[in-house]
């Protein structure tokens, strides 16, 4: 069985808003701020795949990413965590794709790889938060797609997927091939790469595929165009509660909330 995990390298989402810099001309974040990271939901997706592999050594897990020179780092991290292979879709034309184009490019690579049984994607990337690539990829490949999944196990001949619902959770029985959009849960917190894993990952060859390799010759049209990027404004002014110690501040806060008539 072959699982492909799709990943994206993003600008560190933990950069505080006060320090966050926007390239207004390019209509995106300034690219060289902070150390780029692997999208957190993609780490959850890798963990889900590796948990399946922990129980069945015959499962092969391939990490795949689309992006420029620096995205090699996220693939190395995925390998260090325990993925078997990596695929790097690397072409200058791939650097400014929208969700639909990204899905189309990944679909070509998945078809080229052949024999892919399960695809895992993080539910959304912590930069543009579009949350569409996984679902669009399933449409491209004409396979079933489960949103908000957080755990998978083999059961009999099939798979059982746990997913979040608006009011709790549900367990689904799915056949293959299938695509799962993975959300975070206490059951899929990503493992840390082992020292051995890091060493092995460093030595591994990562095959790259360009637009030409994937037989993409025309320029890929955009379906969503970013017209402008602006910074939001918060106009609240915080009033700090004074006091000698916690209980005194607590009493003052209670009195303030009552005086403001905020609590009914």
């Amino acid at each position: 069985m072959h699982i492909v995990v799709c990943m994206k390298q993003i600008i560190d989402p933990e950069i505080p808003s006060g320090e966050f810099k926007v390239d207004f001309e390019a209509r995106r974040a300034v690219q060289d701020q902070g150390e780029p990271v692997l999208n957190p939901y993609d780490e959850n997706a890798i963990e889900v795949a590796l948990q399946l592999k922990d129980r069945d050594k015959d499962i092969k897990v391939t990490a795949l990413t689309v992006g420029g020179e620096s995205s090699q780092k996220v693939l190395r991290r995925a390998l260090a965590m325990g993925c078997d292979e990596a695929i790097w879709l690397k072409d200058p034309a791939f650097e400014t794709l929208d969700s639909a184009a990204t899905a189309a490019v990944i679909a070509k690579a998945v078809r080229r790889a052949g024999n892919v049984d399960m695809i895992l994607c993080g539910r959304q990337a912590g930069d543009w938060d579009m949350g569409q690539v996984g679902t669009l990829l399933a449409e491209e490949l004409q396979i079933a797609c489960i949103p908000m999944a957080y755990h998978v196990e083999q059961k009999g001949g099939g798979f059982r997927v746990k997913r979040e619902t608006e009011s709790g959770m549900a367990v689904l029985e799915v056949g293959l091939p299938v695509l799962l959009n993975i959300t975070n849960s206490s059951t899929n917190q990503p493992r840390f790469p082992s020292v051995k894993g890091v060493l092995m990952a460093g030595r591994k060859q990562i095959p790259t595929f360009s637009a030409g390799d994937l037989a993409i010759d025309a320029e890929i049209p955009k379906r969503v165009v970013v017209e402008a990027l602006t910074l939001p404004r918060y106009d609240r002014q915080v009033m700090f509660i004074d006091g000698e110690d916690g209980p005194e501040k607590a009493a003052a806060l209670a009195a303030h909330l009552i005086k403001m008539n905020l609590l009914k």
Partner: protein
Amino acid sequence: MPGILVYASVSCDAVSMPTREILGMARAIAAKTGEPVSAALLGAGVSSLPRSLIESGADSVYVCDHDKLGEFQVNIYLKVLTDIVAAVNPRILLFPGEAAAVELAPRLAHRLKSGLVTDCVGFDVREDAVVFTKPVYGSKALAQMRIAGPTALATVRLRTQEPFGPDPNRTGEVVAVQTALDDIQPETRTVERVEEEIFECALEDANVVVSGGRGLKDPESFQQLRELAALLNGAMGATRVAVDQGMAPPSCQIGLTGKIVAPEVYFAVGISGASQHIAGMSGSKYIVAINSDPEAPIFSISNVGVVEDYRNVLPTLIAELRKALAR
């Protein structure tokens, strides 16, 4: 005449509030463009609801009432919705930002060879197109996005749009949609469903939300938050980190990926204010932050702040409020 189509969702046998919000948004666009507003209504036993959609702003309602639509199944809903879109041929297609719609919208966009803006919070009607506003980079920036394609699709964040009406004098047309559903089977089979115990009241509807984050040391601290929430007839929330650590159930998660709330009063306890979380609560009318770190970003969006370890604050706060409110 190009038009606007709204995907209607049903909650407790009535038109949902998020649907009424996007009907309000559709009417605001239509006020500038003069386009008709239609609604797509799918479900089992929903034939009494078109009237309510018309009162809330729809000029026409395309309704498919079928046993197979009783439970949401994405491929079956998609088939019906595709038929309705073909009949209406809308220029703009709006979805409420709820789980089912978020699943439907990208798949429909793909079939229409068009684009989708998710989690849209605002819009601007230009001469040739509608431009949608969407928070990006964890709400640290706002993007204005335009769709290049025949239909502009958008999912709309809850509680960002004013609902329209209801106006009992409005009239409209109801069209019955006949999609053949006899042969279609669900893509997946649900074998088990667990509804989480909902404490006090539903998070999204609560007037008061008491939330905890990374700063809370243990699940017992969340019991204190729950106690404060119960005292104020409110609900308890949590950040993504607190959920990941197993301190609070996933249904409590507030943030960009989680629930979006906008209560009268929001208590942020031990919450630093990561943008992911702020995206889910910045619409709150009054924000109270309790955090031992005076530099925590949460203070920059709060109305009132207490710089203190929450453990030294909560017991007295609960006792004082209990006394003052005589509960």
